[in-house]
């Protein structure tokens, strides 16, 4: 008997991060700079609201698109914080994290052979999800332009098959925030060549030198899909709640997939999100300030330790070059883990263009950061 699985799926290489993960799991006493989430737990007010809602018996399904009250709060928040205008009823839906949002957006947009341009280094899910949706991922290497997508380079790889471009700003893994002028140049290209821009703004609140949402630019709305959620800003990663905002034609279609594949986002998370938006923006600001101080500290120390690291303007990651060590990013990460028990994520997990770099997350306490840097310094010295 032959059992054949999906050929498209089997074409996708296993996640580089997964392999490394298995190694780290077996190690004891490590300092982990390999996480991708806040080191805060969800603010107590939000957790308490969730408990109270559960006590009242909120255990059912909700509307496919999510509770209208929750969508209305999101729309109000997006208007106030980022000057975005969406209709809560027709242009907004809740998803199971941004990951589901990426998945169903690709599935709603793509026909076989459609190309999606993905700047790299970039988050791990875009490539595989484009492929699974029948599209063709096209890489835009940003490494020569300080990890900012260069509109000129972008224009060179646009073809008649170009269906969409993915933006992620602030970026995982680089922490880079795309400047407004670049966003405007990209918007002009999107208009000229008629392609969608899928803007993943999950780290939008965690910016340290100002921020412009791509979706707030004039005249882009009918070709823009905004993806965001609660995980990073509100320290709610495990709640699995994100949202899609976009033109009704798009949202009605992503909703069509969502109603069959997910039905609805978890009801408790939706009630928690209402509380988060109504009463917890101050907590977001406190957390942001705390990341900012640790960012300054950690980047300075990494540079002193011998890892060239630019100052990132958003998220909670540093992206350091390890090219001068002569090691591949995987070798570097592996040896650092074995010799000094510090876990970082090798750059190649974020695309071929990210080879020669490592990602560290500074959302961990200052003493741990300090100790980690000492160990990294010792490790690099030992290489010479």
């Amino acid at each position, binding site marked *: 008997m032959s059992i054949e699985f999906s050929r498209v799926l089997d074409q996708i290489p296993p*996640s580089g991060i997964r392999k490394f993960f298995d190694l780290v799991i077996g190690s004891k006493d*490590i300092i982990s700079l*390999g996480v991708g989430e806040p080191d805060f737990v969800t603010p107590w007010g939000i957790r308490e609201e969730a408990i109270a809602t559960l006590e009242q018996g909120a255990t059912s399904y909700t509307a496919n698109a999510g509770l209208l009250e929750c969508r209305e709060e999101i729309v109000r928040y997006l208007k106030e914080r980022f000057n975005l205008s969406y209709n809560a009823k027709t242009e907004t839906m809740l998803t199971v994290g941004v990951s589901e949002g990426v998945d169903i957006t690709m599935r709603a947009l793509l026909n076989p052979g459609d190309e999606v341009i993905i700047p790299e280094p970039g988050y791990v899910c875009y490539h595989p999800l484009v492929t699974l949706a029948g599209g063709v991922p096209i890489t835009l290497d940003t490494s020569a332009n300080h990890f900012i997508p260069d509109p000129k380079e972008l224009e060179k790889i646009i073809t008649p098959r170009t269906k969409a471009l993915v933006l992620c700003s602030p970026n995982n893994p680089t922490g880079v925030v795309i400047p407004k002028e670049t966003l405007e140049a990209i918007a002009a290209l999107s208009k000229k060549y008629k392609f969608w821009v899928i803007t993943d703004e999950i780290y939008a609140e965690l910016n340290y030198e100002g921020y412009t949402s791509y979706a707030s630019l004039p005249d882009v709305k009918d070709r823009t899909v905004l993806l965001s959620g609660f995980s990073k800003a509100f320290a709610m990663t495990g709640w699995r709640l994100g949202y899609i905002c976009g033109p009704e034609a798009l949202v009605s279609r992503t909703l069509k997939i969502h109603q069959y594949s997910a039905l609805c986002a978890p009801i408790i998370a939706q009630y928690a999100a209402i509380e988060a938006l109504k009463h917890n923006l101050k907590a977001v600001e406190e957390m942001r300030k705390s990341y900012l101080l640790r960012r*300054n500290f950690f980047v300075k120390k990494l540079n002193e330790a011998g890892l060239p690291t630019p100052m990132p303007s958003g998220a909670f990651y540093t992206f350091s070059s390890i090219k001068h060590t002569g090691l591949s990013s995987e070798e570097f990460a592996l040896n650092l883990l074995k010799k000094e028990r510090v876990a970082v994520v090798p750059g190649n997990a974020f695309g071929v263009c990210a080879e020669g770099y490592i990602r560290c997350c500074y959302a961990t306490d200052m003493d741990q950061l300090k100790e980690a840097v000492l160990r990294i310094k010792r490790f690099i010295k030992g290489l010479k």
Partner: protein
Amino acid sequence: MTKHEQEVLSLLKNNARISVEDIADSIGVTTATAKKLVKKLENDHTIIRYTTVINEDKMNAECGKVKALIEVRVRPEKSRGFTGIAKRIARHPNVIDHYLISGQYDFLLIVEGKNLEEISRFVSEKLASIENVQSTATHFIMKTYKEKSVLIDADDELERLAIQP
């Protein structure tokens, strides 16, 4: 107050033992500037003292100390209001904290003593005997759940996955 001053305070409030070098790196200034910022905040008494948050239940069990919260109703003085009386009370070494409050009582004191007797004696001999003090209500503190924003005996946090995309 400048942004840097606020940042210095938030760092020191969280960890009074943080080095000037680490403050400098965290707020992105030179060590000399950080030193100056701290000095300025000390000199203008924004920073009054560097102290330690202690699990007092543990300490008091061994050293034999008790703490009480005392509400005090006072008749204000004609010329000085509450201030004159407040100064007389606040100077007592048993008084740890002293606030003017709204509501049925006027002062709220946190008082510390060797044992119940010492605090009772303080109330009857020192506090109630002040002419303008009309009445007091003493509440002995039995257990501390939170002190200076820190949860005492907090549950261990659950661990995060060490590697995530």
